[in-house]
């Protein structure tokens, strides 16, 4: 909220120091004690050289159809000014930007200096200005700029030579605070006054607010009704008769525009003035247009609308949900949010009904959201207003309307206002100290609470605190702990570290496995990626491991490419590859560890699984100048080797690979499913060449593994075996077999039949070139034998090796070479 400190000082004794440094210090103090400060300083801090002048003579410019040559008087000198303002007239008091003055350009927002100018041959020593031209936003200027320059009202008491910025309130000290949702009390000057008083030791001057509603006469000329307690806790109406609607005093207007509200007329301005002063939303209706003396607060009925005047589309109301004010058959307002202009106060209005309601905050909030309309009133009603001050605020506003518009208050009518009681909170000083970690005395605590103008009864440290209605945020003991803490100053709190029982912090096995998995891939040269988990539905399922699962789709997505939670990580990594390729990054090795979302039962949360995936693109060469670039480009085996190395390191044993052709977006000939025993872990291979071609991407090799499965399998710790002192014996095996036979099939046979001494089988050659018959291939393996306990005898190896060759010949018709 924009708080005008000069206005605020009406309510403080002795008042705040509004000098520049003092205001900066105050802003700092507000930040440390209450809420954040958005902006601080005068509304027109940069502008200068603007004076009030009297227009003494106006002549038309000979060479122009719209320029006037004027003589103005600034209290000392007579000055010639050429102006294009259509409304300039002799006798007016207007704003002159003198030669050398500085104003803010409306369009560029930059500070510009006014110079002597010649306009069609006539010299102008400055510029007559509109409010918009001296830095006031369009939204708060009472007249549009097309209407011309600003003219001071005769009654405003302004004289030639006055500093225009000063008399327009633009030199008032301002602090714009950013509200947290709880501090509804700081949405009024009255609330700000109490807060500033607590911080600075000022006393709040309550007299201006004490126009007690009880002092106003009751009247039967108007009636208020609330159809259900759930809609509003109270509605107060007042009737002000025989008003003369006109612009309000400059004193009121300038307070409004510095606070961000556009002045309208003396009735509406009085309402806004007291809205800002008290935080109580107020409305005004032309009593003679209502056609009835009764205003009813009720829910909208089916098919009802709120008219928006001639030519404007009416607002369709939500039956049973929107709170409306009605008069007879007419809906005259959507409570706290908008009104029907047909019933509004105009320049012809004679009698005014003012309304101050306490509408249900939750319903107001829903309605404001539903209709996309948020007003100063709805904002306050949603957050909570001072229920004890509604009628007084109405009294303030009624008297102001009567005074400013020369009317008289006929009286007040109310509905509701039952059981509005003060909140009482019990708390002990010990409790406060226990939560804050302090050792404050009873006196200190009581003093801090009293600074906030809370009523405190102290019985040996047991406090009974009565909360005034404006502090809607204080309802439980913890709230008072906060009040004491912030006023005492969080800077003054001691710093400690939790004492008592100290527990050992340790990672779970699952956490260790995940962390180890990351480290292994980093060691293998992969950068960790963190990609977006939301993507298009196609991408979300494009590279799934295993069976299809229903997707998790957002109800109201932000953009069409982020609608669905991923079920695989490869899609996100391919997006990362595309981003890199588009920026000419050629060699990419990325891995990602993260969740996928399987929405197997829409009524509950999805299954979330940790996956591990990676991509390889381009070259993995350690030095390309030694070997050619081409031969070091990644391929299936580069990827597979890394996945194998990972699985071995993390402790997944007996890993096997099976040719996999069913992965839709993978190369049918270069994809393998990964198993350990019968357990499926995931797959790896080349992304389908057509898939990458569509996105103009180079070859991508990718894998995706279910990390949950790996965690559950890889629980065994490393098993140490003493290194055998006995020598190893190796045998090379070269076989000619059908080209379709897989390495895995050969290995399975070797492992099955070779005896207990076989320690390792290393594949070392694949040959299909010259000398190999059509449809055949030559495979070569080195078999390593070792006896852990004794020297291995040659004969034992020969016999074991022969079993292998025999079995291969029998099973596959292999020709031993």
């Amino acid at each position, binding site marked *: 909220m924009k708080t005008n400190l000069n206005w605020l000082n009406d309510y403080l004794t002795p008042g705040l120091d509004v000098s520049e440094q003092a205001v900066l210090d105050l802003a700092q103090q507000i930040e440390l004690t209450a809420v954040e400060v958005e902006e601080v300083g005068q509304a027109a801090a940069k502008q200068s050289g603007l004076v009030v002048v009297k227009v003494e003579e106006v002549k038309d410019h000979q060479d122009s159809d719209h320029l006037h040559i004027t003589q103005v008087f600034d209290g000392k000198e007579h000055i010639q000014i050429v102006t294009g303002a259509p409304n300039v007239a002799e006798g007016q008091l207007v704003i002159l930007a003198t030669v050398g003055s500085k104003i803010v350009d409306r369009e560029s927002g930059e500070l510009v200096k006014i110079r002597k100018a010649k306009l069609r041959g006539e010299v102008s020593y400055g510029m007559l200005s509109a409010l918009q031209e001296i830095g006031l936003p369009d939204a708060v200027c009472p007249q549009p700029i097309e209407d011309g320059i600003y003219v001071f009202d005769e009654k405003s008491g302004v004289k030639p030579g006055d500093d225009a910025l000063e008399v327009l309130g633009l030199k008032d000290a301002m602090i714009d605070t950013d509200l947290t949702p709880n501090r509804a009390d700081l949405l009024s000057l009255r609330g700000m006054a109490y807060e500033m008083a607590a911080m600075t030791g000022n006393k709040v001057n309550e007299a201006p607010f004490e126009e007690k509603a009880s002092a106003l006469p009751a009247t039967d000329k108007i009636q208020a009704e609330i159809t259900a307690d759930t809609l509003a806790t109270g509605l107060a109406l007042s009737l002000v008769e025989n008003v003369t609607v006109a612009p309000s005093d400059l004193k009121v207007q300038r307070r409004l525009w510095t606070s961000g509200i556009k002045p309208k007329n003396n009735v509406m301005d009085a309402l806004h003035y007291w809205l800002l002063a008290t935080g109580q939303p107020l409305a005004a209706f032309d009593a003679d247009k209502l056609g009835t003396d009764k205003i009813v607060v009720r829910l909208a009925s089916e098919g009802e609308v709120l008219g928006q005047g001639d030519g404007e589309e009416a607002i369709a109301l939500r039956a049973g949900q929107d709170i409306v004010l009605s008069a007879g058959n007419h809906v005259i307002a959507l409570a706290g949010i908008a009104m029907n202009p047909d019933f509004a106060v105009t320049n012809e209005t004679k009698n005014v009904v003012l309304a101050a309601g306490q509408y249900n905050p939750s319903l107001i909030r829903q309605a404001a959201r539903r209709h996309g309309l948020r007003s100063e009133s709805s904002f306050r009603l949603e957050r909570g207003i001072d229920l004890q001050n509604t009628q007084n605020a109405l009294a303030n506003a009624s008297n102001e309307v009567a005074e400013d518009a020369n009317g008289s208050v006929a009286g007040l009518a109310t509905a509701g206002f039952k059981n509005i009681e003060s909140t009482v909170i019990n708390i002990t000083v010990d409790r406060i100290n226990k939560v804050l970690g302090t050792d404050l005395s009873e006196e200190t605590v009581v003093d801090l609470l009293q600074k906030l103008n809370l009523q405190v009864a102290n019985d040996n440290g047991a406090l009974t605190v009565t909360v005034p209605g404006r502090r809607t945020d204080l309802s439980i003991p913890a709230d008072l702990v906060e009040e004491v803490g912030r006023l005492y100053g*969080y800077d003054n709190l001691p710093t400690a570290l939790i004492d008592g*029982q*100290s527990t050992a912090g340790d990672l779970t096995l699952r956490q260790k496995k995940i962390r180890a998995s990351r480290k292994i891939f980093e060691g293998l040269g992969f950068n960790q990626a*963190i990609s977006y988990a939301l993507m298009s539905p196609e991408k979300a399922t494009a590279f799934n491991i295993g069976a299809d699962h229903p997707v998790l789709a957002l109800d109201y997505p932000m953009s069409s490419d982020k609608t669905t939670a991923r079920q695989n990580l490869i899609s996100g990594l391919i997006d990362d590859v595309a981003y890199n390729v588009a920026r000419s990054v050629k060699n990419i090795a990325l891995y990602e560890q993260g969740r996928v979302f399987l929405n197997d039962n829409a009524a509950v949360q999805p299954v979330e699984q940790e996956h591990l995936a990676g991509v390889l693109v381009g070259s993995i060469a350690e030095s390309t100048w030694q070997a050619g670039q081409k031969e070091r480009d990644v391929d299936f085996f580069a990827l597979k080797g890394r996945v194998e190395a990972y699985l071995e390191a993390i402790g997944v044993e007996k890993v096997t690979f099976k040719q996999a052709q069913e992965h839709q977006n993978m190369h049918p000939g270069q994809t393998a499913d990964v198993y350990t025993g019968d357990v499926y872990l995931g797959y790896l291979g080349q992304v389908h060449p057509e898939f990458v071609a569509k996105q103009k991407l180079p070859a991508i090799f990718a894998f995706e593994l279910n990390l949950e499965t790996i965690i559950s399998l890889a629980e065994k710790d490393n098993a140490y075996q003493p290194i055998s002192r006995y020598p190893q014996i190796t045998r090379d095996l070269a076989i000619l077999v059908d080209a379709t036979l897989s390495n895995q099939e050969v290995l399975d046979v070797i492992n099955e039949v070779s005896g207990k001494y076989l320690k390792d089988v290393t594949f070392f050659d694949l040959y299909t070139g010259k000398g190999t018959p059509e449809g055949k291939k030559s495979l070569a393996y080195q078999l390593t034998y070792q006896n852990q306990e004794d020297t291995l005898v040659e004969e034992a190896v020969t016999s074991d090796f022969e079993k292998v060759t025999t079995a291969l010949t029998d099973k596959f018709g292999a020709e031993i070479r």
Partner: protein
Amino acid sequence: MTLAEELKGFLKEAEGQLSQPDVDVEAVRVAFLGKKGKITGVLKSMKDLSVDEKKEVGQVGNQVRTAIQEKIEEKKAEQEAKALEEKLASETLDVTLPGSKPKIGSAHVLQQIMDEIEAHFLGLGYQIIDDPTDSPEVETDEYNFERENLPKDHPARDMQDTFYITPEILLRTQTSPVQSRVLEKHDFSKGPLKMIAPGKVYRRDTDDATHSHQFHQVEGLVVGKNITMADLKGTLLSIMQELFGEKHQIRLRPSYFPFTEPSVEVDVSWDEVTPDTKPEDIKWIEVLGAGMTHPNVLKMDGLDPEEYTAFAFGLGPDRFAMLKYGVEDIRQFYLNDVRFLDQFNERGN
């Protein structure tokens, strides 16, 4: 010529041959000392001599043999040294050519920040909660909001735009729901609960330089019988000094979160603060929100707020990484530009 003289002559002859630079040393050895060599020949012909003569010739023979042997070894060493020198010379490389450098991968910068936070809190005896059961990214409205003291119409819900799946299921907007999930299971007979929960959160925001619909949080929660706001302040000071350096200071400002009361916003000093630093010269940067857990939250989690007190905080790894490294666009974290990722090596500091 006596045999002895003949032998001495061989020595001269051998010396002569071995003085040639490129002499085939092995050939010399064979010629003089081999089985059929000259010395052997002479010694073989000794059988006809008298015992004295044999003794004399034998002595000379041995002397000559040893001398030739020595010369040969000497020459051999000389030649080998030369050969080695030549070989090394021929193997000389341009050592300024690039090395064969294996690529070392890197943890993502956000991961590094989270790892650092985790290590700090592990040291303080905290548990880390990051499994899908206790820390799901898809949450219920109940845990994400209601259990955090944010009923359906609460104005503070405006602070967080939410991706809903159904009216009851949503992408979590904060890691706070982990608090309730862990708290309701904790056995307080085993001591206070001290936990952090790192993880992804989501907000219905338009992505730009400072907003991302996906980002990270590390929730912290400590619940026990004597947990104070001073403990919170000390804890936050220690983690901020861990992340930003030990000479940095923090300050607490009042704020509002529905799930804490009192609530504070925490600023960290942009520069180091020494005893000589004037308060007005400190530039404060807002880094996190924290507070004493709201009694309603404790109650909903089955604890008596009169008996237990608690503090909670929410750290933002994305924001920390931006501040620490001067990353100006939050989207950089999720685009995975290799040139970006490669800049964050694990330095160990």
